[in-house]
């Protein structure tokens, strides 16, 4: 089980780099990219938790999280293109 703490440490470092880009990003698209990547990293967190605890509901969280992250990213991208959300 010790190796799982190493995995969580690496993923935590990745998400802090995403947070750095969200905070420092010079333009709005940079922040959008970082939010998208952070969503996928969280899916990795949920998968590791489901292995550690042998429970399957963490993967339900992962599925719902990836869906919502995708929809949010598409909405932000449409906003960047200067169009309405229902086009």
């Amino acid at each position, binding site marked *: 089980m010790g*190796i799982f703490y190493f*995995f969580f440490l*690496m*993923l935590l*470092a*990745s*998400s802090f*780099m*995403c947070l*750095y*880009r969200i905070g420092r990003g010079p*333009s*709005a*698209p*940079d922040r*959008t*990219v*970082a939010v*998208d*990547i952070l969503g*996928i*990293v969280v*899916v*990795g967190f949920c*998968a*590791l938790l*489901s*292995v550690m605890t*042998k429970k*399957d509901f963490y*993967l*339900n969280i*992962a*599925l719902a999280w*990836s*869906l919502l992250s*995708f929809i949010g*990213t*598409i909405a*932000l*991208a*449409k*906003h*960047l*293109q*200067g169009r309405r959300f229902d086009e």
Partner: protein
Amino acid sequence: MSNAVGLSMITLGILFNFFGCVGLVRLPDIYNRLQASTKCVTLGTSLVLMGVVFMNGFCSISMKAILCMIFILVTSPTAAHAISKGAYLSGVELWEGSVVDQYKAHVKEEER
């Protein structure tokens, strides 16, 4: 045996995730960042889910992991494509070291 295969796949995936995020911090402009992070984080998370499948065998966790993997492999490049088009249309310039930009002519023609 399958436990060892699963653990090595998870390790590889986590390393790819990490290097993708290093690329997100290091590279100079948004298009390069988008390339590095999308490729690495998509394959990294897919490898983690694949390792979950190998470690659990044939049960409910594996089915959900496979569905999640297919979903990520389909949606992540689509989101990257939408963001890059949005970034170009909202006026983010390419990095100054860029060699060629053949998209500018197309955008000008569309505006006319």
